[in-house]
């Protein structure tokens, strides 16, 4: 027995194929073919069976009128009534005259109805697509195993600048820019990724703040930012 989804995929073309056969055979052939489908163990067998049933439906559609006609009448020639001149004019005005010039029970089929054939073809296409294995495009990478060492948290230096220009290094007042330079270089040597948080007072002159920024640039510390800027808004 096949997987249910594959079996269901192949049941679609069978249901489409039985639309080709005469109406009184549809229910029987659909049930018969769907019952035979699980006995096709392999994928190719099921697909071949489904395709074969589509072909069988087309053959049955063409041949079944000859089987079911009364004995002796199968070979009887069809007598076509000649169309009178006035009828030709009336017929020619009907839409679709060129495609179906004759109507009625005895009318001959002048063309193949391709709609069911196209239906079956589309259903077969869908079934084929559904039955294909999923293609995976993957690149094999050998990733490093083990646990990465924890990253030490960066040290944070708080620099406060008061309104009168006094600079504080982590709360401790700094004598001047020269000492601040020394502190910054020492910090850069100890931890190049240290974060410098500047807390200037809103009344501080920009000249002092600019000198502190210049000092941080000289020490090659890159993580410098203003903290607590809400008071400037």
């Amino acid at each position, binding site marked *: 027995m096949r997987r249910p989804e594959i079996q269901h995929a192949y049941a679609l073309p069978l249901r489409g194929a039985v639309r080709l056969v005469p109406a009184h055979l549809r229910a029987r052939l659909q*049930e018969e073919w*769907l019952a035979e489908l699980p006995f096709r163990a392999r994928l190719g067998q099921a697909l071949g069976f489904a395709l074969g049933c589509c*072909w*069988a439906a087309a053959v049955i559609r063409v041949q079944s009128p000859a089987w079911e006609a009364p004995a002796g009448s199968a070979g009887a020639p069809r007598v076509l009534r000649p169309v009178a001149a006035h009828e030709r004019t009336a017929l020619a005005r009907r839409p679709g005259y060129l495609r179906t010039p004759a109507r009625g029970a005895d009318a001959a089929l002048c063309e193949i109805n391709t709609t069911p054939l196209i239906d079956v073809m589309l259903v077969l296409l869908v079934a084929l697509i559904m039955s294909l294995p999923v293609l995976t495009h993957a690149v094999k990478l050998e990733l490093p195993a083990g646990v990465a060492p924890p990253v030490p948290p960066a040290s944070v230096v708080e620099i406060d600048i008061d309104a009168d220009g006094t600079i504080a290094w982590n709360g401790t007042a700094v004598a001047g820019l020269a000492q601040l330079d020394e502190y910054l270089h020492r910090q850069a040597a100890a931890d190049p990724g240290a974060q410098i948080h500047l807390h200037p007072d809103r009344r501080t002159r920009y000249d002092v703040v600019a000198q502190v920024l210049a000092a941080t640039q000289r020490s090659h510390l890159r993580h410098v930012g203003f903290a607590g800027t809400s008071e400037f808004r």
Partner: protein
Amino acid sequence: MGSGRRKIRVSLQTLRVLEAFLERSGEELSGSDVQKRSRVASGTLYPILLRLEAAGWFVSRWESIDPAAAGRPRRRLYRITPAGLAQATEVFCGFNFVRGVPA
């Protein structure tokens, strides 16, 4: 399906299907059984089965199982009729049939 004596066009595939039934004439065969024995593809097999059934050579019925208990749907089983057996024998004699392939 209709019945009655009707002239049947006998092809090589038809002979193979008939041979599958003649090996065990009283046995009922499903489509897959006939396909395994005759090695006729399903696209050819089912028109032959329906044609021979319409001609009265075969009769068919649904399998007598409970689909829920069996876990699968019921199959259609075909059996050759006495009239079909007689006509098939006549056909094989006419072909001088030797084990699967006409001589």
